[in-house]
């Protein structure tokens, strides 16, 4: 039992130790860093297969588990999208599909992608792996609860997928689950399907609360010596702020799910007004469907920032490392992330402009929505200003970053169309909206995920991914996805509504048949192209070039572990001591074009490194 813990760890009290040597000689006062405030973490080390790889408390293992499970659900979501596009592009081929099936695919695709794939991947996957490493901690502060959070996610996914097999099938109410339709006949899956969906979401929220508490407290209270909040990489800022949003937005989802479940199971009327169905008045009455929409979107809007903010943070780091240049305006970038996060709670009803809510809300929410465009635009300017006068490595990672910039600006601008209330009136519930959110939330963050995979795979696996395969993967995905969603906006302009199983012979829509065929074909190609990555990963795990330590010559702490891939406890015997921010690239006077965060000032005394 005592081998599970290293009980003889001593508190690090010496001020001038660094990970890069720090010998017995005199070290200058410039290198002084305060001693540790708390004792070194006392971690539980598993020894059996189960405690090392299954019920493991190591945040890195948990991160990979989240990543794999989220990707698995993402692949299911991808297959569902193929089925949808098959119906929309080639309905004769999709004759096996009924309207019920179609709506069930639409719903499950949406919910899986937004919640179970993107959120889980960014927060659970990247958050778990990178937060302790980047802040210099050995692990999350409460590893046991962190482990339980993953298994809650696992059960939530299980319940969600089980809904495919219950009588009536999964819910087909749209990922937005609007009542009254979602629990009434006339909508597929309005029996067990919707109930399992709501249970799954509740489990998801509980699990992510457990995980989220860990991410927040580790960042706030468990950083290593010298690591101030303003020396943290933007990746951490992005994931941290997204987690704050999650803690405050998921409650609304939980409450709306509970209330809808009660409406379904017990016949309460929280959201159900007087309803006439098949000639008979149901026993509901007095409830408000719009109340659900307020609750749902109070969650739903921060949710999209929960997906976007980690992507913003990560892409800043990727661009910085691969252009050998500090991120432009780091402090402004931090403030922008925080302000965007805060403002995201005040814009939700821009999803409800045509919901029938009081018209005066339109003025308020259009204003707040367009205000939030300002810090977002500043981030975009700072990304391209980082490229300006950089020394840009045109490798696979950088290509994904550039793809992000193009798709995010495109999607962000179309968001401004929709945010301006009157412009939303003709475009609401058309394919313009579908194109907008796929571009800004599907494609742009996906570009970042891919870039992040190529960037951090060498750390996690100890091997490099193939650049050649990576470039094929990129161009197919970027050009293909852009070809899907850019033209789709124009379907919205001609007025094609969303969530239409087919258009029948609407006179002015027959012209869109070819466009739909083109989009569907592109979708199949892009989907297939993802297998290039899977192949790349599998092959590189075996015969990829060994990465060695810090192959990208980056500054942040995750690259500075004694072992690659990092072991349980991350740092070996000595925790790192941080002296600078992670963006000292191409510092005039420095020997190399990067200065790792643990480099003490005395070693770079004759450079122009700024005090950070």
């Amino acid at each position: 039992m005592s081998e599970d813990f290293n009980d003889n760890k001593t508190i690090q009290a010496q001020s001038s130790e660094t990970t890069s040597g720090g010998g017995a000689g005199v070290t200058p006062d410039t290198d002084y860093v305060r001693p540790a405030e708390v004792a070194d973490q006392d971690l539980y080390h598993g020894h059996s297969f189960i405690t090392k790889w299954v019920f493991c408390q190591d945040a890195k293992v948990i991160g990979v588990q989240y990543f794999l499970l989220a990707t698995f659900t993402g692949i299911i979501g991808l297959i569902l999208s193929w089925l949808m596009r098959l119906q929309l592009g080639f309905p004769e081929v999709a004759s096996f599909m009924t309207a019920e099936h179609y709506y069930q695919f639409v719903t499950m695709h949406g919910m899986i992608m937004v919640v179970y794939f993107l959120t889980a991947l960014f927060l659970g996957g990247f958050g778990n792996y990178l937060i302790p490493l980047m802040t210099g901690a050995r692990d999350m502060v409460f590893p046991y609860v962190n482990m339980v959070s993953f298994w809650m996610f696992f059960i939530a996914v299980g319940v969600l997928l089980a809904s495919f097999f219950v009588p009536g099938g999964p819910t087909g109410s749209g990922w937005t689950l609007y009542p009254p339709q979602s629990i009434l006949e006339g909508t597929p899956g309005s029996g067990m399907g919707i109930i399992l969906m709501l249970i799954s979401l509740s489990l998801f929220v509980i699990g992510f609360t457990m995980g989220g508490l860990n991410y927040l407290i580790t960042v706030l209270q468990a950083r290593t010596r010298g690591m101030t909040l303003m020396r943290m990489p933007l990746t951490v800022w992005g994931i941290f702020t997204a987690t704050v949003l999650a803690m405050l937005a998921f409650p609304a989802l939980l409450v709306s799910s509970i209330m809808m479940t009660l409406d379904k199971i017990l016949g309460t009327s929280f959201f159900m007004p007087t309803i006439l169905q098949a000639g008979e008045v149901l026993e509901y009455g007095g409830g408000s469907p719009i109340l659900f929409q307020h609750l749902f979107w109070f969650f739903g809007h921060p949710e999209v920032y929960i997906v976007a903010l980690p992507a913003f943070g990560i892409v800043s780091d990727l661009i910085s490392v691969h252009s050998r240049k500090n991120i432009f305006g780091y402090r402004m970038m931090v403030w922008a992330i925080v302000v965007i996060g805060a403002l995201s709670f005040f814009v939700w009803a821009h999803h409800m402009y045509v919901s029938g809510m009081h018209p005066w809300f339109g003025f308020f929410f259009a204003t707040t929505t367009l205000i939030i465009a300002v810090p977002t635009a500043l981030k975009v300017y700072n990304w391209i200003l980082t490229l300006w006068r950089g020394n840009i490595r045109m490798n696979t990672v950088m290509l994904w970053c550039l793809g992000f910039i193009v798709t995010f600006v495109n999607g962000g601008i179309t968001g401004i169309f929709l945010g301006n209330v009157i412009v939303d009136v003709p475009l609401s519930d058309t394919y313009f909206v579908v194109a907008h959110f796929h571009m800004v939330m599907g494609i742009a963050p996906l570009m970042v995920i891919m870039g992040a995979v190529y960037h951090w795979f060498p750390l996690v696996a100890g091997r490099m991914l193939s650049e050649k395969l990576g470039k094929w993967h990129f161009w197919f995905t970027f050009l293909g996805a852009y070809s899907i969603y850019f033209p789709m906006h124009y379907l919205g302009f001609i007025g094609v509504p969303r969530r239409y199983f087919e258009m029948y012979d609407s006179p002015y829509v027959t012209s869109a048949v070819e466009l739909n065929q083109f989009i569907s074909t592109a979708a199949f190609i892009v989907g297939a192209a993802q297998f290039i990555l899977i192949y790349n990963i599998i092959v590189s795990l075996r015969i990829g070039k060994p990465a060695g330590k810090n192959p990208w010559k980056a500054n942040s702490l995750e690259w500075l572990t004694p072992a690659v891939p990092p072991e349980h406890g991350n740092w070996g015997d000595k925790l790192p001591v941080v002296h600078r921010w992670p963006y000292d690239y191409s510092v005039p006077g420095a020997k190399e074009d990067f200065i790792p965060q643990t480099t003490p000032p005395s070693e770079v005394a004759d450079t122009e490194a700024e005090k950070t």
Partner: protein
Amino acid sequence: MHAGIIFLAVIVGSVLFHIFTPWYWTDVASNWGSMDDTITLTFWIGGGVFIAVCLFMVYCVIKFSYKEERKAEYKPEDKKLEIILTIATTLGVAALLAPGLIVWNQFINVPKNAIHVDVMAWQWGWQYRLPGEDGKLGSTKVANINDSNPFGIILEDPNGKDDVLIQSDVLHIKNNRPVKILLRSVDVLHNWYVPQFRAKMDAVPGTITYYWFEPNKIGEYEVLCAEYCGVGHYGMRGRVFVKSEQDYENWLQEQETFSDLVAKQGKKEFSKTKLAKK
């Protein structure tokens, strides 16, 4: 370097697509051409930003491509530039918001001479009711709806007696006369949308929502349901005929009023409904 060219091609291709696209707005047939104008303004400003940002990105990628001997610039911040960019963006955003809110204000304030039309939505069809000679629609109750009273009109309400009932999904309206669409639903959310009129609003059970427009082009238009309402959503269509004053009056004369319907039915119980099990 050559990746930059491909990105440039994507931007140029997007602009060309926009200029030559065969898929664009339907011809506007109502007064809400101002919505189109706001969209056009947004295109200029937003599109301009998109092109500028992407071209700048392409330029950087080509000009600052990695060279061993190159040293990137080391400049953590440029306060002045950041302030200028913040102000410029704020001005751009304000330039979009101000006209948008002005038009929104017009949208929510209905002209006094608008004709009220009750649009009743159900899974999966439409029916309509006009106020008749007194200019007022009678009040309704969902519980009153049955075969003999398909609109659920409350019998005691005198305003309802002359309401014109249109029990099909084809509505006729007068050209060049504002119309206030009063939406109600008897079951789930729906939305009465004609792309050429541009305006739309959800129909919410339990409440009455509205929007208004003034048609200005005679013709026949298709109505689409624009809020997911179950498996029949995509098939829930209607038609609207915009007619000249004379043609409209002729059509109106032929329509049945609620009193006509009541007389046809003879003496029948109207308020009886069956309360169903869920």
